[in-house]
């Protein structure tokens, strides 16, 4: 498969970002913030790190846009399942 020379994102920079974000997460978890602030922060940090890995390390940045449809297909289903079942008792 004669692929054109693949552009490589700055892996080391992404690695640094991931390390920093992990340290912030652990610090925030133990800094005794109230749960109402802590949980959104941690979720945001987790999503940020996860998308960093997905976009740069898994090369989603270089894939055709249509391919994202395949990648993101399961997410809405996961949300539907968890939200619907939480309705059950989450009153």
């Amino acid at each position, binding site marked *: 498969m004669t692929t054109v020379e693949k552009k490589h994102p700055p892996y080391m920079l992404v690695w640094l970002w991931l390390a920093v974000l992990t340290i912030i997460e652990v610090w925030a978890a133990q800094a005794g913030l109230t749960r109402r602030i802590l949980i959104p922060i941690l979720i945001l940090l987790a999503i940020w790190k*996860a998308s960093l890995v997905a976009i740069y390390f898994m090369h989603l940045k270089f894939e055709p846009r249509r391919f994202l449809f395949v990648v993101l297909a399961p997410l809405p289903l996961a949300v539907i399942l968890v939200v619907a079942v939480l309705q059950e008792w989450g009153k």
Partner: protein
Amino acid sequence: MGADARPQLRMTHGRQVEYGLGVYSGKLGMWVFLCSEVMFFTALIGAYIILRWGSSQSWPDPTKVLNITLTAFNTFLLICSSVSMVKAYAAISHGDQRGLRLWLLATVAGGAAFVGVQVYEYLHLIHDGVLPSGFREGGEIMEALTRAGLPTGGHELFGAAFFTMTGFHGFHVSCGVLCMIWVTIKAFRGHYTQAHHEGIEVIGLYWHFVDLVWIILFTIVYLF
């Protein structure tokens, strides 16, 4: 897991970029498999979220029960292993066989170390009395929680959910390490060249996915 080497399939491979989503079969197949893995972990993590926040059951505070600093280091270890995987892929795409082998060895080492730390953490927890069926009476954890006056209610489910999710993630990492060893052996035999190295990218996708799941697991299970 590399692309199939049968001659006529390679002929059709050349043509397929034109029709599909512009992604060769090996990568597309791996991404479809990763979608099913996302749904598998949805079932496990979804059940954890529902059991923890769905019912009125109180939940022991994970930061007190689990060793955060050790797992933070473990998360960092897995991120490094993910980076070394990507470096391996970058190396072979530039044709650097030696770089590929070194980075692959680093990835295997990182993955194996992660599983090792995970096993150590399990043994430590079980010794302290955190079991899939709940906290053992008189175990180290129960004493610590009662001494600190923290609620020990709802501990029956904590062990079950914790061990199931992290256990299956560990199982996926171990499978990844075994496949990585096989890929490394093939790399040492010069199987991958600058023109044909789909196998590295496909195993890399799996490895980054396992790292991605751990990032979510680490946050939800250990830090909340």
